[in-house]
């Protein structure tokens, strides 16, 4: 094993191989966190729409979930990156592919364009949204109808019932499965390398190709991924105990 290789000067970017790993980490976090913002907000709206007593929003939300969760993530990545610019009007497609600002001026010099980053974020975000939507829906449906009825009976409107009664409990109940989705988005962000985003996995592959130190390159990446996911797990656990409801025992058993 030769870990010192990471401190050698890399052939590009004016940094060491360790610098490449940091750059990869930066882009992994950037793609994942931006995608999570989309996944959580779109997923919440779609999940709620699947539970409302209105036929049209429910049908649209169901179609969304089935569309996005039934196509392999990698295929979706290619659809966004290669196919989408071809199906929009030609001028827009050209703008996406060529004229979006390049990120070379940003720190952690990126050798890819904003379009690659955007496609990766949209793809990962909208795909994960379909999974988040199912978590939100199951959380809402795990609550008794009586809760909604109690809200309505005191004169709240249905949106107010969601806002004050159903969703605060539903989100608390689905923190554990939501943690898994949040972890998965970091791990799935590695598929962005297929469309040219130099995130953590791409950087370690690049290091391995330049130095032939395969073991060191991928072990380093593995450790960094584990640090990210452990951080998420601890943060979500802290959140869970922070918002725990005194005296409330989840249906289906204690803890």
């Amino acid at each position, binding site marked *: 094993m030769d870990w010192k290789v990471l401190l050698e000067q890399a052939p590009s970017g004016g940094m060491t191989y360790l610098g490449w790993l940091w750059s990869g980490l930066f882009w992994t976090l950037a793609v994942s966190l931006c995608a999570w913002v989309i996944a959580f907000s779109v997923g919440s709206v779609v999940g709620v729409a699947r539970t409302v007593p209105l036929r049209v929003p429910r049908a649209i939300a169901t179609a969304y979930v089935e569309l996005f969760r039934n196509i392999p993530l990698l295929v979706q990545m290619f659809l966004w990156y290669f196919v989408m610019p071809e199906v929009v009007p030609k001028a827009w497609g050209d703008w996406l592919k060529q004229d979006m600002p390049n990120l070379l001026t940003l720190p952690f010099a990126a050798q890819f364009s904003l379009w690659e980053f955007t496609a990766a974020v949209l793809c990962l975000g909208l795909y994960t949204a379909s999974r988040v939507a199912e978590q939100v829906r199951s959380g809402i449906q795990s609550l*008794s109808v*009586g*809760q909604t*009825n*109690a*809200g*309505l*009976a*005191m*004169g*709240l*409107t249905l949106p*107010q019932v969601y806002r*004050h*009664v159903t969703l*605060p*409990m539903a989100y*608390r109940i689905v923190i554990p499965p939501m943690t898994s989705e949040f972890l998965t988005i970091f791990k799935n962000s590695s598929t962005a390398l297929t469309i040219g985003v130099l995130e953590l996995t791409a950087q370690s592959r690049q290091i391995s190709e330049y130095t032939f130190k395969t073991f060191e390159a991928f072990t380093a990446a593995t450790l960094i991924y584990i640090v990210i996911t452990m951080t998420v797990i601890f943060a979500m656990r802290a959140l869970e105990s922070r918002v725990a*409801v*005194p*005296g*409330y*025992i989840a249906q289906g058993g204690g803890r």
Partner: protein
Amino acid sequence: MPMIELRNVSKWYGSFQVLDDCTTRVGKGEVVVVCGPSGSGKSTLIKAVNGLEPFQKGEILVNGVSVGDPKTNLPKLRAHIGMVFQNFELFPHMSITRNLTLGQVKVLGRSQEEAEAKGLKLLDRVGLLSQKDKFPGQLSGGQQQRVAIARALSMDPIAMLFDEPTSALDPEMINEVLDVMVELAREGMTMMVVTHEMGFARKVAHRVVFMDNGQIVEDCTKDEFFGSVRSERAQTFLSKILHH
């Protein structure tokens, strides 16, 4: 004009009829007990009164407003009809005080201070002022149901609906809830109560409605009901629940 009036109300789940041509009324200040075997449609009937259960035929008027009319502003109507549920349905993530103020603030537009003063006064009335900062999960069933009654009262209702308020309670907690309800009835609150507690009916009901198979079989005064029930089904029912 009666406070609550049901005219020929029918409801189907698919081809199964749960309410069959139900007609009854609750006058202002009147206490009507609805009883009957399980599956007879009592809960469905009482939930139809504030529009929680839609119905396909007939008409329900509350204080002169038609519940089934699509033009009716249901939230506005419901704000003035208190409802108490079998499973209490306090909001578990809110303190008792917030449970009492939510509707007052969001629906009636009262200020937080005003709502809190009102809510705590009613909490005191049901004997639970000391629990104001606790959460529903930290209270016993009987205490939760008393809070639920206080929550409904905090909206200054013109009528109260009770849907089997003591059925989910341990036996030793039933009386603390019934006591609150008896007191309310004696103060002249308009009440429609689905219950099997015949002692409560004897004590404060003006009329008793007996349901079976979605139909209103008996609708008579308390004395008539306990004195000389006319239908065999009501007699069978009474003999089953009164003799032990």
